[in-house]
Every structure is written in structure tokens, then in C-alpha cells.
């Protein structure tokens, strides 16, 4: 049986902050790609999504301080979902323990703010 890795994923814990990654997110976006970034005011939670500038196809996500579901992102990567879909459904991927404060709304608001065309 040939080795056939699925979509890239990993996780770690740095100084009490949990990190997870699904798909590919590079320090600087690759050519023809862009980043969407959201960071919480307390500097312990953030997400970075890499996506294709043209098609808006979702390519990968980095999360700090928020747990996400492997299964959901694996599926979305296979289904080649776009950035808008992922942001709109990001609450489905949350894996934080019960009773935790959730930040999906903040992320979605931030996304709305960033994606609005600047009007003069």
C-alpha cells in the first residue's frame, strides 16, 4: 500500500498557547495568495487563513488559542471551499471545550470590515 498522506495538519503548544494548522499557511502568502488575519485584543488568540486571491479558494488556516476540528477542515479542503464559505461556517469547526467564550462573531465581523471596499 502506497503512502498517501491526506491534507497537511499539525498542532503544538507554545508557552501555554495551543496552535493548530490545517492545509498550508506560509509566513508570507505565496504568489497569487493572500492572508486573512484576525487577532484577539489579549494577544493569546488569533487565526490566519491563506486563500487564493483570484478564486478565493481556501488553502489553509493557522489558529492560536482556539481549537478547531480536524475532520471539518479536512472536508472543506477536499471540497475546495472558498474563503467566504469557511468564514460563514467557521462555528461548525470549533472544538473549544464547553462553556468557553467563542470568537466566531468577532472573526466574521472582522472579515466583513476587511472585505468591504474602501469608499471615499
Amino acid at each position, binding site marked *: *500500500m*502506497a*503512502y*498517501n*498522506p*491526506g491534507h497537511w*495538519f499539525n*498542532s*503544538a*503548544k507554545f*508557552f*501555554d*498557547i*495551543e496552535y*493548530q494548522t490545517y492545509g498550508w499557511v506560509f509566513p508570507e502568502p505565496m504568489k497569487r495568495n493572500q492572508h486573512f488575519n484576525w487577532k484577539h485584543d489579549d494577544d493569546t488568540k488569533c487565526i490566519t487563513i491563506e486563500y487564493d486571491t483570484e478564486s478565493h479558494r481556501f488553502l489553509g488556516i493557522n489558529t492560536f488559542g482556539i*481549537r*478547531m*476540528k*480536524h*475532520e471539518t477542515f*479536512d472536508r472543506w479542503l477536499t471540497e475546495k471551499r472558498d474563503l467566504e464559505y469557511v468564514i460563514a461556517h467557521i462555528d461548525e469547526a470549533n*472544538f*473549544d*471545550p*464547553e*462553556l*468557553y*467564550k467563542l470568537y466566531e462573531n468577532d472573526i466574521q465581523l472582522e472579515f466583513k470590515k476587511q472585505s468591504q471596499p474602501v469608499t471615499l
Partner: protein
Amino acid sequence: MSHKLNYSMSLAKPDALGISVTQKFAVGIGIAGLFILILALLNTDFQNQSWFLTLALGLISVGTIIFSNSLYLNKSKGIKNDGVYFKSISSRGIIGWAIGVVLTLFYIVLYFYPATLGLGKTGESNTGLIALFDPLSYVLSGRPASQWFVYGTLYTVAILIFGYKFMLKYRHNRYEQIRTGSVMFFQLAFAFLIPEIMYRLNSKIPYYDLKSIWPLNYYNFERYRINQFIDAGDIGLALLIFGIVSIFVITPILTYKYGKRWYCSWVCGCGALAETVGDPFRQLSDKSQAAWKLERWFVHLVLVFVVVMTTAVIYSYLGKDSSKYWLTRDVFLILVASFLSLIFTLTMIFKHHELGKDARYGAIGFFVVVIAFIGLHYFSSDTKLFLVKSETLRTSYGFLIGSIFSGVIGTGFYPIFGSRVWCRFGCPMAAILGFQQRMFSKFRITTNGGQCISCGNCSTYCEMGIDVRAYAQKGENIIRSSCVGCGICSAVCPRGVLKLENNNLKGRINPNEILLGNDVNLMDLVNEK
């Protein structure tokens, strides 16, 4: 965070685990408080008892609070279990062993020789340690303290101050914070204050901790209790009905919705002590398969024991004449037997495929109980049940299970066997809730795809001795009757793999879940052999 240079360069024990100056100071304060209690035990005649009691409990509390603050507040939020296997107290070292012995002796004295603690014989006033608690008892209920009042007060103080420590330790985790707030509240209000206040309002009401449910309070339906309830009028009757409703109605509904954790790690007093005071010992629970087998035999045998014992005790005081009162001995036996048969039949019809070999043990257990009832019917006289006296059955349960198991072994052995020995091996309430959690509940712990790195933190810190990692590695949901839902496995996981959830019954058990992260299905390889 410590920036101290690591001179030894040892990976196994990088730092000497000394304590800071503040911590030494805090230990001094706490021990001073404890010393006052020891002086009281030695019959020291304190002129102003209420002042010394306040001082003792105050010093113990302040010491613990200062110590906890110094231990956690100067470090970043997050799991801080550093060095648990190097510290003598939490790794069965000399301090752990000594504390285990002292606690065990304390429980033996508390249960069997309360006069040693200073309990006054009937009519006489208290002396020693118990007398020290008289002022507080008078304030709350207007009567002198008993050994149980002393124990209750110390128990509550311990849960409150160590609950504070627990909250600091897990202050990054909202589930743990709220859960600990809940156990602290239920202990303080339901177990400690409300029964005393109820006594003040109506002295005929028997002591009733509303959150203690049969079979945990195995004595609840004994003759003297029933008489007390009835004598106390409407409120007594209400309490009696509440006692029945809480096990037959409230418990199944809440366990269906949330799993047994609604009780074991959110409400129960034994659970409260295990989760707060017992937290440093949770890694000592035995994870071996042998322990798991022993656990299932023990906990279910205790359940069978308590069911037969309670039925026999109620049977022994019921009448025979149905014209006087509808609930006669025979009606009662038939009711109990049909209720058990109903549960047994339903389980066998709907859940037989999930049970495997355990179904046979269950069936044997069931028939033993039913035959015991039939025997009860044919071979009992007014005082004797089968060949034993009903009183003997009751007292031996009270002695073996109520005192030795739940108190002496359950709590005394914290530093040796971990914090949940009683909950895991002995508690009949946990057996009922666990059966329901396994068979009919929305609760499960889900795992997160292929993220598990097999570090084993989850299994290590599982106080119920569940090998959580074995499930997480395979991407299986964890559905175990013993799981009390404390949430620590999820908290200590460095990779965010575990999550406690209530969800649909469908797909709850997924024994052959595909391992994510490799499109070669490893489970196929495993199953191929």
C-alpha cells in the same frame, strides 16, 4: 516564569523542587491554624472558643490562599502540573504516605470513636475538638456540635479553599472554573448550611442533604427516617417524596441530557472533595486493565448489595394487611421486582448488541437479585430475612460500605490510590448513573481526528483510571460508564484533541472511525491482520 539557570542540565529533574519564601510563610500560617485544632484535640481549655475557632479556620484558609496565589499567579495561565512525580506528596513519597496514614486514622476515630474527638456522652457537654466547634454550631442551628458537624465544617472549608486553588490552577479553562464554582456552592449551601437552617426552622426534620440521593444516602428509607419524615408534617412528606423523585425522575432526565457528570463532578460532595483537595493526587489512579475489571465487579456488587439491603429493610417494617395500607410487603416486593425486570428487559432488547459478555454477568446479577426477593418472601419472619437479621444486613452495609469504603479507604487513601477510589470502586450511585450514561445518554467525549500525539497526559490525569489515550489514538469517542466528566483530559491535552459534548444518540459510539491524516486507512491495515 522561571529564568533560573539550569545548572544540572538534567532532563529528568531539571530543578530542585523547593518552595519560595512566600510559600514557606504561607505554610507557616496554615500549620499554625492546624496546630490550634491539635491543641483543641488535646483538650486545651480555650477561654474564648469562637475566637480560637475563627483564628484556626482563618489561618488555614489564609495560608492556603497565599500559597496558591504564589504557586500559580506569577506563571502564565495554563496547565501547571510540573514535577508531580518528583514531589513527595503527589508521588506516594514519604509525605504522601504519612498524610494517607493520618487521614485514615482520623476517619477511624471519626466513625468509630467520636468520644476521642471530644463528643460529650448523652447529656454531657462536649470537650476537646468538638467543643471548639460548639459556637459555630449554636449560631447555625442552635444546638451543640457533633463529630459530624466538625467533619462537615472542615470538609466544607477544605472544598472552598482548595476549590480556590483549583480555580487558579485552571484559570485558563472556563469549564473547570464554572464546574468548581458549582461544587463549592452545592457543598456550602446544600450540604452545610441548608440542613442546619432546616433544623432551626423545624427541629423535627431529619438531617437531609438535599443533593445526597439514594443509594448514596442508603439510610434514607429506613424505618426511623420514614417516621421522622412523617412526624415532621407536610414538609417532611415533601422531603420524602423528593427523595423518591430524585432517584427515579430527576436523575434519569439529567443523566440523559448531560451524562453522570451533572452529579459526580458538579453537585456531589464526594466528587467535590476529590476534585478540589484530591486534585494533586489524580495521577495516582490505577490505569491497568485489571483495575478496570476489579472496578466493574466491585461497583456493581455494591449496587446489588444496596438494592437487596434497602428492599429488605423496607420490607421488614411494612405491614402484611392490605386493608390497613395498600403498600404491603408483598405489593412492595412485586413492585421492586417488576421495576428491575422492566429495566433488565428493556436493556436486553435494545442494548444487547453493545453489551457482549457483560450481558451475561448482568443477567446473572439480575437473577440473583430476583431470587433473593423470592427467598425474602418465603423464608422471612418478622425479624429475620432469609437467615440473617435485617438489622445485621443494614449494619454490615453501613459499616463496610458507608464507613470503611467511602470514608476510610475512599478519602484516607487519596495520596496512595488517587482521589476517586470510592467513586470508582464503591459508589452505588455512580454505578446507577454510569449504567445510564453508558446505555442512554447524550454525553460523550469526542476526539479530534488525527491530532493525538500519544503523549498520554489525558490517561495520566484521568482520576477514574480510564485509558483515554487508547481511544484518542484511534479517533474513537469515549463512552465509559465510569467517566465523571471532570474535563481534565480535555484541559491537559496539548493538541486540543478531546472535547466533552452532549449530542445526538446516533453515531455516539463509533468503534471503527477512520484515522484521519492519512488517506491510507490504517484501521483497514489493523483489521486485515
